[in-house]
């Protein structure tokens, strides 16, 4: 983990960096959406940073904030042994950001995961395909407003009565949110 890496990117792209901080030993840079690709390319190709190993892209849904989604890129350098986290805020109305697979091929499936689970589109790589769910699935399940039990079966299912519910809000109840947190260990009997 090195603060020098943070400083180097901030010096090179002063207009792109919104915020930089260190928390629990992780260096994080919040950058603007438009500059993601050039910052990414710089991170990989700069000999001091050498962040060649793409670890993952993930997305966090801050449903009560605007812009809503936050993409989190985690990068590592094997030679320099430091990590960097890049964060990009993406609004709900226009969830699109440049794809980084031209920089690191390993980001391919993680970007598909972000599309599948959150609905973030990545431009410059053709139509987005789902990774874990089937194409007939509608919606993006990891968004906070998608219900936990919103099943979309592909086959007609027999009417087997469930008498026990797993953890989480029950069927028919509103989805969990900040103002309506689900209670732990709910064991309602489903009629």
């Amino acid at each position, binding site marked *: 983990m090195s603060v020098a890496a943070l400083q180097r990117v901030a010096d090179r792209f002063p207009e792109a960096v919104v915020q930089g901080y260190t928390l629990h030993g992780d260096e994080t840079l919040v950058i603007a959406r438009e500059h993601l690709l050039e910052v990414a390319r710089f991170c990989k190709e700069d000999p001091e940073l050498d962040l060649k190993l793409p670890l993952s892209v993930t997305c966090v849904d801050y449903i009560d904030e605007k812009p809503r989604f936050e993409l989190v890129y985690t990068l590592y350098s094997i030679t320099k042994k430091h990590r960097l986290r890049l964060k990009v805020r993406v609004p709900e109305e226009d969830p699109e950001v440049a794809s980084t697979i031209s920089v690191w091929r390993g980001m391919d499936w993680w970007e598909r995961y972000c599309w599948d689970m959150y609905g973030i589109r990545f431009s410059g790589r053709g139509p987005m395909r789902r990774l874990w769910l*089937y194409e007939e699935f509608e919606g993006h399940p990891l968004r906070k407003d998608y*219900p936990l*039990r919103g*099943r*979309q079966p592909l*086959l*007609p*299912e027999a*009417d087997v009565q469930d008498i026990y519910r797993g953890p989480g809000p029950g069927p028919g109840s509103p989805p969990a949110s900040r103002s309506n947190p689900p209670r732990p260990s709910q064991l309602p009997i489903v009629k």
Partner: protein
Amino acid sequence: MSQDFQAITTRREEAQGFFERMISRGLGWARKYSLFTYPYATACCGMEYMSVSGARYDISRFGAEFPRFSPRQADLLMVIGTINLKQAPILKRVYEQMAEPKWVVAFGVCASSGGFYDNYAVLQGIDRIIPVDVYIPGCPPRPEQVLDALILLQEKIAAQNHKLVDHRPPAPEAVRPAGRDLVTGAMK
């Protein structure tokens, strides 16, 4: 351990003559001791299936040694592990491709009832799409439990009515479309 279930029946089509009963018991004996499993392994229970077919908890001493990875050649479909909604049509297709007589074992709680994965992705039990003969609870079940279930299945097979030429229609499908709202999960 096997008990002979001589079902007392008064229905003509279920009545068995002496020779039919002999044949049925012979075929039942042959079928139960030579099960060819199709291990439909998906998840963690697959590890326990490997242990069951390994050298210590030997499943081959029960006659069920060889897995047959083609549904046409198998007669026991062991659904091992979580079946999610994407995998469900494939499971149904494999089940339909199997030839009669066939039996289904739901290995593990995920296959029996969805386990503790009560969410948008997981089928809550394979008995919603195919009929199941034996359920093995456990997450994952111990190999001894699996062998106990196999013995139970063998007793069930022995008690069934086996015919040399069987004109029965194939096993009924366990479907009546469920009335659930797709988004909230509430019953319609």
